[in-house]
Structures are given as structure tokens and as C-alpha cells.
């Protein structure tokens, strides 16, 4: 809403000296009068009708799309509710998950024994065989009658100490 003449004069007074303000107000008024007395051509009626048609088409399209949106939301909500209900039902009434029970159920202890015992006995036999081989190569290691190496060394030391000519050979 433009200022009325008094408001415009007051506004100009705040920027200009009173005499200049009066002249400026007149310039503005008369200048705008020129625009009033020399009106611009009017828009073509056909173009106005075309603008109206275009707007109505756009508004109709907007209405259609705004109607489609609730349907889309409805379908999505239904799908989400179905998934949620299925999940809840599965959790409530479906097979329960107990880790220990599942492990014990999955592996039968008897099965363990059957499977492992032959492996163990095989390995034991293999180890015994290896030990036998070692004993064959070093038979004195497990001969209980053979003198203990430490005892043997001690005896030699005693002999050296008691016999002066031991070192001479």
C-alpha cells in the first residue's frame, strides 16, 4: 500500500529540506501521473485464457498427485504392519533359540566317543612305535643296570684324587 500524500511528504521531510521535500513530492506525483495517463497495452485476451487453462491443468495435476500420495502412504503402512506382525508372531510362537540346548542336541556324546577313540588309539600306537624305534637306536638309555653317568664321573674323580699316577696314564 503506497503512502498517502501526507505520509509521503513526511517521509521526504526526513531526508530533505522542507522546500525540496515539497518539490520532490510533486515530481513523484506528477511522474506517476504520466504512467497513469499513458497506460501500457493490455495483455491479449487469448493469452490470458491460455494462462488460465494452463493453471487449471496444473492445479488438476496437483490434486491428482496429492490424492495418490495418501494411497501410496496407505500401501506402505500396510506392508510395514504385515512385516511387523509376522516378526512378532515368529518371535512369540516360533521355535525358541537356546544355544546350549542346540549344541547338545546337535552333537550326540556317543557320536563323539565313537569318532574320537579310534583316532586316539591310532595315535597312541604310533607314538609307541616311535618310542620303540628310539630305544632300538639308544638301547642303553633305558637299561637300568647301566651305571649312571654322574656316578661314573664321580668314581673317576675319586680315582684321580686317590692315585697320583693316574694322570700319567
Amino acid at each position, binding site marked *: *500500500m503506497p503512502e498517502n500524500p501526507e505520509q509521503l511528504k513526511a517521509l521526504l521531510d526526513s531526508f530533505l529540506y522542507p522546500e525540496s521535500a515539497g518539490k520532490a513530492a510533486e515530481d513523484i506525483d506528477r511522474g506517476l501521473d504520466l504512467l497513469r495517463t499513458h497506460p501500457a497495452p493490455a495483455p491479449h485476451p487469448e493469452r490470458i485464457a491460455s494462462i488460465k487453462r494452463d493453471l487449471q491443468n496444473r492445479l488438476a495435476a496437483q490434486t491428482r498427485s496429492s490424492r495418490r500420495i495418501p494411497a501410496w502412504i496407505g500401501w506402505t503402512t500396510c506392508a510395514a504392519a504385515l512385516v511387523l506382525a509376522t516378526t512378532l508372531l515368529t518371535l512369540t510362537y516360533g521355535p525358541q533359540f537356546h544355544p546350549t540346548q542346540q549344541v547338545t542336541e546337535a552333537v550326540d556324546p556317543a557320536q563323539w566317543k565313537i569318532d574320537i577313540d579310534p583316532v586316539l588309539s591310532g595315535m597312541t600306537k604310533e607314538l609307541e612305535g616311535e618310542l620303540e624305534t628310539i630305544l632300538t637306536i639308544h638301547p642303553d638309555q633305558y637299561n637300568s643296570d647301566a651305571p649312571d653317568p654322574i656316578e661314573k664321573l664321580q668314581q673317576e674323580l675319586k680315582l684321580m684324587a686317590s692315585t697320583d699316577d693316574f694322570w700319567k696314564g
Partner: protein
Amino acid sequence: MESFEKPDTQKLVSRCQAGEHGAYDELVDLYASRCYGYFYRLTRNADISHDLLSELFVKIVEKLDSFKGGSFEKWLFTIAGNLFHDHLRGRYRQKKMLETKARELQDDPLPRRADTELSDKLQIFLSKLDEDTLQVILMRFYGDLSFKELAEIRNEPIGTTLSKVHRGLKKLRELMGESGA
């Protein structure tokens, strides 16, 4: 001072916002002439002015929900001003304007049409004002806006707007031989 009849714009805008399709026709009837005049005086071209007018109303349909009250004219002419700036930037339209002018010069070297821009004395003198001054004067006239509203739209001090309009209109009066001095 007021040059345009002012019905209850606020009610009309509310009806448009409520989705009453017929209200848009009323809005076009109410503002088409003023907005066309604004574009025509700026572009000096009827085709471009019609195109801009059409774009303006499309923008109104798209953006009317964002109008939260206040002066509808200020809102409307802010969009109109932006559209004009976009138009100035648009190479296509510049090209079209040049082509139109070239065709006019070729086909119609003498201004026979009494009501066209070539015989519009005011249009000739308006074109002697700089673009910025012309735009603010036309916004004041066709938008029926206060200097405060103009300054807000242009994001400048009110004194600057006031001075620009005053100098522009004073020059226009002088050019039209109506200075009265």
C-alpha cells in the same frame, strides 16, 4: 495516489490456498493487467511480456503455500522482479528479443501500428532511464507498493529507494516536457 482498485486480496489468496481452483482465475483477472504492464514497460516486447506473465502465474501456483500473509502485492512483485532478472540473464530470451527487433525492422520499417511500443512516447522516454531506476519506478506504480516495501524488496535503505524514484520520475517529466520549471 492509489491507482488500482483493491478488493479483498487476502480473502482471494486464502481461497486459492484452500485449493479453490476458480479463485486462481479471479487472481489472474485481478493481477494480469498490472503484471503485464510491468513486464511490458520493462521489456518493451509483447511476446516476452506474455511469456513472463505466464511464468509468473505458474510460479504463484507453485509457491502460494509459502505466502504467509502480509502484503500480497509485495510478494507478487518480488517474484515478478526476480523473473525479470532471470529473463535478463536468459540468453534465449535475449536472442528472441533481438530476433523480434530485427524482424520488426525488416518487415515493418515504419511504425504503422498506433498502439505499439514504437509509437508509445512514454515507452521511448522510459527506455532512457537506467534499468534499475526504471524497475523501481514500475514496481512502485504497478505494484502499488510503499517506499518501505520497495526498500525491503531491494534490500537497500529507504532513502536510496526514495532518491532513485524521485530522480527517475523527475527526469521522465523533463523528457516528456512536463517539468513545469
